[in-house]
């Protein structure tokens, strides 16, 4: 699997970006030239505007005279943590509901899938914005809100797949030799669903990264002083005419990370699930 992934240049590019961001996040305390929230006296011009990139501050400084590079490195921690945690919860919820509805069917299955339809007809971003704004904003609220709106698509795919697996001969054979449902479920169905979970888990992180950035950009996501790529843009957006790098460098970071998970997810889908090629 890994080899066929490495043969695709776009997937390789995606993996490289993810690796760079992971290294940036894990080693931020050692890589960052300065503490992320230290305000430098010489970090602003005499008029009080941010400094452009220069030898002391490699990517320049922000509106409070803090080093942008250091904030970006620490911001990578936030983006990755939110992306991975929120999305793992979403995959968990989606799989649980999808498998339960698909495997047991009947009244519970129908009720669960109607609940999924209901969540799907709720505009996700609007729901996330309302929830994030009204609860006291914090990192955990952002994670929970994103997880709550992000499980639906995976759930539907898992449901369809479980239904079709349950009809197959090998399940029939298991029933015929008297296997109980836990054995059929855990030994025979779940292993077949793992590729789907990996694919949607990876593609989902891309959406999660965008959602977190959007909420933080609106000021209702991750709260300062914790740096996140979205809130760096939110804090500095008034300077976008005079200091465009303050918006476009963190913006490029968000774009690249989201793109990387998309490229890897899509390649994984081609490798693991050839039936669904090229559809979104």
């Amino acid at each position, binding site marked *: 699997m890994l080899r066929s992934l490495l043969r695709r240049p776009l997937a390789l590019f995606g993996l490289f970006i993810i690796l760079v961001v992971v290294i940036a996040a894990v080693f931020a305390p050692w890589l960052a030239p300065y503490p992320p929230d230290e305000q430098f006296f010489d970090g602003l011009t005499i008029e009080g505007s941010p400094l452009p990139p220069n030898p002391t501050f490699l990517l320049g400084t922000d509106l409070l005279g803090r080093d942008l590079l250091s904030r970006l490195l620490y911001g990578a921690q936030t983006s990755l943590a939110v992306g991975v945690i929120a999305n793992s919860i979403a995959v968990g919820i989606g799989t649980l509901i999808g498998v339960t509805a698909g495997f047991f069917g009947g009244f519970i299955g129908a009720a669960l899938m109607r609940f999924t339809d209901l969540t799907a*007809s*709720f505009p996700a*971003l609007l729901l996330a914005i309302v929830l994030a704004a009204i609860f006291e904003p914090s990192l955990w609220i952002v994670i929970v809100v994103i997880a709550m709106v992000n499980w639906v698509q995976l759930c539907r795919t898992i449901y369809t797949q479980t239904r079709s697996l349950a009809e197959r001969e090998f399940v029939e054979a298991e029933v015929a030799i008297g296997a109980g449902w836990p054995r059929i479920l855990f030994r025979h169905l779940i292993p077949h669903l793992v590729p789907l979970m990996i694919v949607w888990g990876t593609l989902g992180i891309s959406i999660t990264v965008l959602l977190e950035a959007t909420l933080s950009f609106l000021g209702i996501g991750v709260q300062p002083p914790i740096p996140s790529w979205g809130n760096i843009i939110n804090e500095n*957006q008034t300077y976008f005419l005079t200091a465009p790098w303050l918006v476009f460098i963190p913006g490029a970071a968000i774009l690249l990370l989201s793109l990387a998970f998309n490229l890897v997810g899509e390649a994984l889908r081609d490798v693991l699930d050839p039936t669904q090629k090229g559809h*979104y």
Partner: protein
Amino acid sequence: MAVYVLRRLGQAILILVLISFTTFFLLYVVPADPAQMMAGRGTNSAATIASIREQLGLDQPFLVQYGRYLQNLLHGDLGRSYLQKAEVTELIASRLPATLVLMAGAIFFEIAIGLTMGLLAAVWRGTKVDQALMVASFVFVSTPQFLMGILLLYVFAVHLDWLPMGGYGSLAQLILPALTLGILGAGWYSRVMRSSMLDVLRQDFIRTAKAKGLAPAIVVLVHALPNAILPIIALIGADVGYFLSQTVVVESVFGWPGIGQLTWQAIQRVDIPIIMGVTLVTACLVVLGNLVADLIAPLIDPRIKLR
């Protein structure tokens, strides 16, 4: 047909009731207190706050409040804004046209860009053009909308000075916000269009058309394109809900006076009647969008049957 529409409308009403209940419940349990917001931050007089609560009926039990809301809803009354001293229906009606114009523009760009990219990628399948277009489609779906908005503003309004920075009223002012909103969808559409076009190009009637000696452009545009467009139509219906949530972001970047701005202001001030109203109107449009897309599909493609 009539039975199908009636059954779908019945389901739609059920969905809307459930959505109204869920939203009402979520807004009921949130820690933010609208009475405190209305009284102002400085006011801490418990008596003032209590009287505001009583006036708004916020001291009633949850089900009583919800029942009253539903009863008013049946009369087409979405309640009064807590802070703007106006009917929610009027506020939404006054903002809806701007948002619908923005959405129409976004759908135009989505289709124009998405279909063109998908078509070219399919025709030149496997070439550098195909690869470049598909990478572009990935970039489109991976760009946060606010970043796309700021980037377009920076390039076309500040740097090149071709288009206005923001505002509402003229066609020139519509282009950038509509493009921002539409470009992500264009990324999706181009991928769907490419694979749909490839499916069509493999079919017998295309081979016949080619064998007749028709010009390649005619084969692609007249014979293949109309058939390949079908999957896109279902997607446009589903886009309505997505657009309405994204308008919160796009309208705030461009200062577009639509539903998105209204929602954003309401969210910040915990103006619950407006939030409820917008959620319900959005849900209505989503359900309606899906229904219309499903009804149009068999008209365009007789192979599709309504079930």
